[in-house]
């Protein structure tokens, strides 16, 4: 509100000025507000600004445009007659609809009546504009007040009483609202109680069901016998420990390796039942469903007029079952698969079918070996034919591609090896390189060995070069054993690593030694050399190898026919038996000896070309070396006089190798049979069989 002329004042009560500006609350008014109510005024609200009291009484709560200040405003706020600008909404029950403040104003000077109100002359020059409908009653009284101060005092008292009544009514309304709210709450709580009662009933029902089920379990035979077992375990700590050990053993020796193998299998690229593997620099391997009998079919890949024929006709599925195994075909080439390549199958009856090639997968040769052998089922019908005709050529081609990568050999010499060693000991390292430290500690106690032998470690695991270099330095520093350490730039397999070591060897004899073969006492090497000197020039000599518990790990090797393939396994007779059962004293000739500890002359080794590297990754090469030496006029000897420990990792092999590894062993077994079938047949004849399915010679 604003007044146009500053001197304009309305004389209403006791000559107190009615000043529209903020400073109207005077000390006199304050004193009046604090005075005792009189019979005349009836209420202490009188000193309150009667104009505001009127407004409040007549219009209901008034929202002020600015935050009210001062004790009067505080009491009005407390009474709910006025509301600050940020106050609660004006919506109490039973309250009259508030009139917007904007429509009430005091204005100075002559001004036309607003269209929605009236103009009341309060003082000359000051007019009050009131909304319609307010002229009767309060507005009229105000009019009177404007003329007579005594009347104004009376009217103000009435207004104040009216104000009080309104306050009471509003309190009542508030109480009613509270009562309503309480009633609502009571209803809600009642509902909640009902709900809780129902939930309780449900829970009790469930508990009864559980109890019944538990009783049923406890009455069951399995539970009772389980309780008996538990009681037995509780009574007897030894049995209990045994049971816990059993469980731990099962976990660590069976379940965990199984899970690890699953994880390893998951790491091998998985290919669907139909796939075309493009192997860089090797060729294409196709797995495809063929609904017809493909015996004798000629299969080719056709792309833009170019035709590549499969390495061999498909291995005929041996049955007419509906779930015919997929056709597996290997096409040598560069491994690229052009878009639109088709698989053409020409049957012997002249009919011809062309099928689109399945989705192509590109693999490195290493990954391809695992992927294709991972799908090979060695127990299936026709497994040997499939392996021989398609998979083996593909695996060999992959291996050849791997071996085409050049190898660099780095050499570090620790200490001073003997100038003219009598024997070079070649130890390949792969995976566990700390065996170097252990062998060094044990060789250090053998002055005879240190004087006659040159030690050559060959690290076939380039990822561990730094670790090995550190261990090698430590091993030499502590034990003083001199040795040479060759590091190959890529994994070359068992044959490759030994051949690299042999090329670096300077002694006239070579001792192939595994890193997990440990001497039992000094002097063993001298005895081996002594026996070897008495043998024909191109001879190999092996010795007794024991597990750590003293049972036999190796007492010569023999060949036994593989039950389902036309091939032979290398067998370790007496493996796991007490050494005393290998009673025959003195050196004797055997069909072959293991490469874990094999002494051979270097000239003979070079004549036969060392270990054959055809075997994929590694297996059978020690047997192969024995065959080659025999063919070169040597003999294969085994001596029980010298015994070493061979700590063949005892957990591996408990459950067999992962699938593709087993397939690989079968591949190498076929390669071995292919190379040495005549000698093997003479040593251990295969069962007589249809010649057409026999091994290729």
């Amino acid at each position: 509100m604003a007044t146009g002329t500053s001197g304009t004042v309305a004389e209403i009560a006791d000559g107190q000025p009615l000043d529209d500006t903020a400073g109207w609350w005077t000390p006199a008014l304050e004193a009046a507000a604090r005075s005792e109510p009189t019979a005349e005024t009836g209420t202490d609200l009188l000193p309150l600004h009667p104009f505001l009291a009127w407004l409040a009484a007549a219009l209901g709560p008034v929202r002020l445009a600015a935050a009210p200040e001062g004790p009067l405003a505080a009491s009005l706020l407390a009474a709910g007659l006025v509301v600050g600008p940020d106050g609660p909404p004006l919506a109490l029950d039973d309250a009259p609809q508030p009139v917007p403040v904007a429509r009430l104003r005091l204005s100075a000077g002559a001004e036309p009546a607003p269209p929605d109100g009236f103009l009341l002359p309060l003082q000359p020059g000051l007019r009050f504009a009131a909304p319609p409908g307010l002229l009767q009653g309060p507005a009229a009284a105000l009019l009177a007040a404007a003329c007579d101060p005594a009347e104004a005092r009376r009217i103000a008292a009435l207004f104040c009483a009216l104000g009080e009544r309104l306050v009471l009514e509003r309190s009542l309304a508030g109480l009613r609202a509270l009562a309503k709210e309480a009633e609502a709450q009571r209803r809600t709580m009642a509902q909640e109680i009902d709900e809780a009662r129902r939930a309780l009933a449900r829970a009790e029902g469930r508990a009864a069901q559980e109890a019944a089920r538990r009783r049923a379990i406890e009455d069951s035979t399995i539970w009772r016998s389980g309780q008996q077992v538990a009681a037995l375990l509780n009574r007897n700590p030894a049995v209990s420990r045994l049971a816990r050990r059993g469980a731990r053993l099962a976990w660590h020796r069976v379940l965990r390796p199984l899970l690890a193998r699953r994880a390893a299998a998951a790491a091998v690229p998985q290919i669907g039942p139909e796939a075309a593997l493009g192997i860089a620099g090797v060729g294409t391997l196709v797995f495809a469903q063929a609904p017809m009998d493909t015996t004798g079919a000629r299969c080719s890949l056709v792309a833009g007029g170019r035709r590549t024929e499969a390495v061999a006709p498909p291995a005929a599925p041996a049955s007419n079952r509906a779930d015919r195994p997929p056709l597996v075909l290997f096409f040598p080439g560069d491994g690229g698969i052009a878009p639109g390549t088709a698989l053409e199958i020409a049957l012997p009856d002249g009919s011809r079918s062309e099928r689109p090639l399945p989705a192509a997968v590109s693999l490195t040769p290493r990954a391809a070996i695992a992927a294709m052998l991972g799908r090979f089922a060695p127990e299936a019908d026709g497994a040997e034919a499939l392996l021989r005709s398609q998979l083996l050529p593909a695996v060999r081609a992959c291996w050849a591609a791997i071996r085409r990568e050049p190898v660099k050999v780095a050499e570090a010499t620790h200490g001073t090896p003997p100038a003219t060693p009598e024997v070079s000991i070649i130890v390949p390292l792969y995976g566990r390189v700390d065996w170097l430290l252990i062998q060094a500690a044990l060789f250090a106690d053998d002055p005879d060995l240190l004087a006659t032998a040159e030690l050559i470690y060959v690290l076939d695991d380039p990822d561990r070069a730094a670790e090995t270099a550190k261990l090698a330095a430590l091993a030499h520093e502590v034990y003083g054993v001199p040795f040479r350490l060759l590091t190959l730039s890529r994994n070359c397999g068992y044959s490759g690593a030994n051949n690299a070591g042999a090329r670096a060897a300077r002694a006239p004899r070579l001792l192939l030694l595994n890193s997990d073969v440990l001497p039992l006492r000094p002097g063993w090497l001298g005895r081996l050399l002594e026996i070897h000197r008495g043998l024909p020039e191109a001879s190999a000599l092996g010795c007794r190898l024991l597990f750590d518990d003293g049972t036999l790990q190796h007492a010569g090797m023999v060949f036994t026919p593989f039950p389902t393939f036309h091939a032979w396994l290398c067998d370790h007779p007496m493996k796991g038996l007490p050494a005393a059962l290998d009673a025959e004293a003195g050196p004797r000739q055997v069909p072959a000896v293991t490469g874990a500890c094999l002494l051979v002359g270097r000239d003979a080794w070079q004549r036969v070309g060392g270990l054959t590297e055809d075997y994929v990754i590694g297996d059978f090469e020690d047997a192969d070396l024995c065959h080659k030496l025999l063919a070169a006029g040597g003999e294969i000897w085994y001596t029980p006089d010298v015994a070493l420990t061979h700590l063949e990792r005892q957990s591996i092999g408990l459950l067999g190798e992962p699938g593709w590894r087993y397939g690989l062993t079968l591949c190498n077994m076929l390669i071995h049979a292919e190379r040495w079938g005549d000698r093997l047949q003479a040593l251990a004849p295969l069962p007589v069989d249809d010649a057409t399915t026999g091994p290729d010679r």
Partner: protein
Amino acid sequence: MTRRILILAHAHPEENPTGGELAAYEVFKALRERGWDAHFAAPRFVPRLVGERLMKWEGRPDEWELPYGETELFLLSQRSPLLLRAYAELLERLRPDVVHLHHYIRSGVEAIAHTRRVLPQARVFVTLHEFLAICAHNGQMLKTGDNALCERSSPEECAFCYPDRTPGDFSVRRRYVLANLLKADRLISPSEFLRRRYIDWGVPEDRIVFIENHVPYQAPLPPRPLPAGGRRNAFGYFGSIGLYKGVRQLVEAFQLFRSMPEGADATLTFHGVPGYLPRDFELWLEGAKQRGAPAIRWTGRYARHELPGLMAAIDWVVVPSIWWENSPLVIQEALMAARPLLVSDIGGMAEKVRNGIDGFTFPPGNLTAMAETMAFAVPRFDSLQPRDMQAEIAARLDALIEVYTAPPVAARAA
């Protein structure tokens, strides 16, 4: 001619004042008093300047600190060349006639071979302080899991305790550690019990000798003055509050004993601080400290010079360990202070404390038997006679010097 000896311990007792370190240091001091040119070295975990390897221990002329190293704890193998190089430097500088290793967990078993390599003429001895070489479970010979006493190690048996390792791993461990231990002239065992265990494990009998740890002699204490009508029922425990020390069993047995007539006014005082403890043991310990008061008291850390005063205030020393123990220092200290002992009747404890002569024994962890042993012991205090420890200790040191100077056993290798 003055003979020179280097004693290599796994830590300096000023850093870690427990049995093994103290035993090493006391020999060093005793030999120095007997006119030897004795030197003491130990790895120390302190920040080092680059290139700084070998240092005098806080400027002392005959004590040395080595770099801390890096031990691979399965093969007990040193993997840091730093420690071995500093050690070689020390050997070359001192050129001792005798090198005596106490423990090898910080230096690695390679330190023995390294001594041989650097000083082929020196005599090398190793004192064994527990079953570390035999048992991968902190050398305690307790089964993992339930801490049951283990009688025997073998690759198969050990793989049961550590199923993630194969028996082959344990074979290698045995072969490697044994080969390295046997590069010493003699192994020294502070108890006959431990000696037998190492012989069962593969050490030839003539390569391991029993000599009790040296301790500085202290005169016996008079018995605790008793109030009128008082009984000999003040018990004391000394040493770290460890997991295998049987503290929990002792507290529970003592509560049982308190309900017996002999134990009505008995007290049990624990001197020592907790070592590394599992959480549930820590919680139990907190609770036990509240519940046991005032009959059970916990005084916390004590300095060695305070020990006579603490022992003077009690009648019996209890050693209730639930592992074998080798030669607990507290037994020597109690014997010197003329305080009879109550100990578990296994391993080194049963050997050092003769039942009915030096004290009484009970089966480890058997609460009833422990309480009954306490009740049985109280009225028999006066029947036990103190041992003449002065002569015994002097004889030990003589025996040790005799071993140092004896001709080497024929073969060093296995």
